[in-house]
C-alpha cells in the first residue's frame, strides 16, 4: 500500500485519537483518567504538557499522577477541581445517555456488563467529559440505551455543572450540545465518509454544512507522543505502550 492510498500516512489510529483528545482538552487545568484508558490517558498527558495542567491517572503509581486514596477524585470533582474526564459505554444513545450496566431488561438482561462505576456521579460533575468508544457500530450507538447508568442531560433545577463535550470514536468526532441533548458531527477521520458514520450510528445527529476531516497530528506532536508520552503511559498501561509504541515499562 502506497502513501497515497493510505490517508493516515504513518500515523497510527491510536496516535490520531490521542491527538484528537489533546485538542479537546486544550486549557484544562486538571484531567482525570480511568484505570483502563490508555488512549485518553495519553491524550490528557499531551494536553497537560502544553497547558501545564495536571493529570490524575487512577491506578498510576507515579507520584505526579497518583490520587490520595480512592475518595479524593470524587471529592475533587464535586468541588469543581476536575475539568476533564472520560466515559464510555456498552451502549450510548443520541441524548448522550450511557449504559455500562447491561443490555436487555434490567437486571436479568441478555448481557451484564461490569457496572456504572463512577459514571452516575462524574458525568454530573466534570464540565468537560469526553465520551470515548473506539468501536463505532449500531450495537454501541443505539437509539435509546436499555439502562441509563448515567444520563446525558438533566432536568432544569438539577445541580449539574458537568456533562459531555464531545464523542470520540474510531470513525469520527462529534460535539455534544448539552442544552439540546444532541450530537453534531464535527469531523470524520481520514478515509471515513459521512455515510459510513451514519450507517454505523443508531441515533440521529446533526451535520454541519461541510464535514471536515479530522486533523492529523503534526510531525512534532507525533514525535512527542512516541517518545515522552509513550514512556509516561507505560507506567499505568504497560501492555498498551508495548503494543503501540514498542516501549517497555521501566522498573519502578
Amino acid at each position, binding site marked *: 500500500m502506497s502513501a497515497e492510498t493510505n490517508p493516515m500516512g504513518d500515523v497510527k489510529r491510536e496516535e490520531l485519537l490521542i491527538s484528537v483528545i489533546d485538542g479537546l482538552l486544550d486549557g484544562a487545568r486538571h484531567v482525570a483518567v480511568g484505570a483502563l484508558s490508555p488512549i485518553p490517558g495519553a491524550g490528557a498527558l499531551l494536553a497537560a504538557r502544553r497547558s501545564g495542567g495536571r493529570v490524575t491517572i487512577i491506578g498510576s503509581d507515579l507520584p505526579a499522577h497518583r490520587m490520595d486514596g*480512592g*475518595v479524593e477524585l470524587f471529592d475533587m470533582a464535586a468541588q469543581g477541581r476536575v475539568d476533564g474526564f472520560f466515559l464510555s459505554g456498552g451502549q450510548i444513545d443520541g441524548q448522550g445517555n450511557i449504559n455500562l450496566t447491561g443490555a436487555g431488561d434490567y437486571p436479568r438482561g441478555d448481557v451484564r456488563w461490569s457496572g456504572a462505576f463512577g459514571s452516575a*456521579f462524574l458525568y454530573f460533575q466534570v464540565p468537560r467529559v469526553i465520551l470515548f468508544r473506539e468501536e463505532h457500530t449500531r450495537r454501541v450507538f443505539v437509539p435509546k440505551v436499555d439502562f441509563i*447508568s448515567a444520563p446525558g442531560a438533566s432536568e432544569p433545577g438539577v445541580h449539574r455543572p458537568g456533562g459531555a463535550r464531545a464523542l470520540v470514536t474510531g470513525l469520527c468526532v462529534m460535539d455534544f450540545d448539552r442544552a439540546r441533548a444532541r450530537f453534531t458531527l464535527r469531523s470524520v477521520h481520514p478515509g471515513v465518509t459521512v455515510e459510513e458514520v451514519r450507517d454505523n450510528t443508531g441515533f440521529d445527529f446533526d451535520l454541519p454544512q461541510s464535514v471536515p476531516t479530522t486533523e492529523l497530528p503534526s510531525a512534532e506532536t507525533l514525535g512527542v507522543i512516541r517518545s515522552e508520552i509513550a514512556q509516561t503511559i507505560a507506567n499505568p498501561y504497560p*501492555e498498551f505502550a508495548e503494543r503501540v509504541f514498542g516501549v517497555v515499562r521501566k522498573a519502578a
Partner: protein
Amino acid sequence: MRPPVLDLADLAARIPDGALLAVAKEPNAPMALARELIRRGAKDLHLVTLPTAGVFADALIGGGCVKIVETSGVSLGEFGPAPFFAEAVKSGAVEIRDATCPAVYTGLQAGEKGIPFMPIRGIIGSDILANRPDWKVIDNPFEAGGDPIVLIPAIRPDVAVVHVSEADRFGNAWIGGRHELKTMAHAAHCTLVTAERIVDHDLREDEAKAANLITPIYVEALAEAPGGSWPLACPPDYALDPGAVRAYASAARQSARSGGGEEWLRLLTPGHAEAAE
C-alpha cells in the same frame, strides 16, 4: 482487649453465613480468606464492595457463597468481564444492588461517622437511582427550593475484611495510602485482617506507619497469611500475577457457561501446579 491472632480457618469462621461483608477493590483483596469461605461453603453473604470488585467477588459468587452483591462494578479489568458475576446476575442467582463508586464511599463514610445518611450530588435521572429504593431524594433544605439531592443511607457492614502487608500482634494493620480501607474498617462493626506478616513491635510506635493504621479498636482478629492476596497484588510485597488471573478468567468463563467444574477454584489455589503433579 487485644485482638487474637488466629489461623485462617478460625478467622473465616468469624464471618457468619448471611453476614453483610465489606471488601475493598484490589489491591489488598483477602484472597486466602475467600478460599477459606468457599472451602467452608459459606452461604448467603451480602457483599458490599468498596467501591468495585474483581476476582474476590467473582470467586465467592462462583463458590455459591453470595446472595446479594452491592457494587459499583465487578470486572476482571484488563482480563475481561467477571464471568460468575455476570452469569449470576442474569440468572437471578444473586440479587444485584447497583451503585456508583462515590455513593458507596458516602454510605461507608456515614457509617463511620455514626450518622444515618449523607448527601451526594449527581445520580438523579439514572436508572441506578430508579432501582435503589433505599436511596432518597430530598429538596436541599439550604436552598429556597427546587434543588433535589440524593441521600445515601449509612452502610454499617457486619464484617470488613482486608489483607495488608504488615500488621502487629497488638492488632494494628498498616494500610499505606489507601485511606478508604480505614473508612471501611471504621464503618464496619468489626474488621478481620490477614497480613503478609504479623510483627512483634507496636506499629503505632513506628513514625512512618503510625498515621495509616487500622487500630485495635476496630480489629476483631488477625491471621498471618503470606501470599494472602495472590493472584492479586499486595503492595509493596508483590504485584498481580497476570498469568494466574488470565487462567482464572478463562476457567471461570467456562465454568460459568457450563454451570460446573472446579478447575477455576484449583487455579486459585497457590501451588496448584505442584499439587497436581
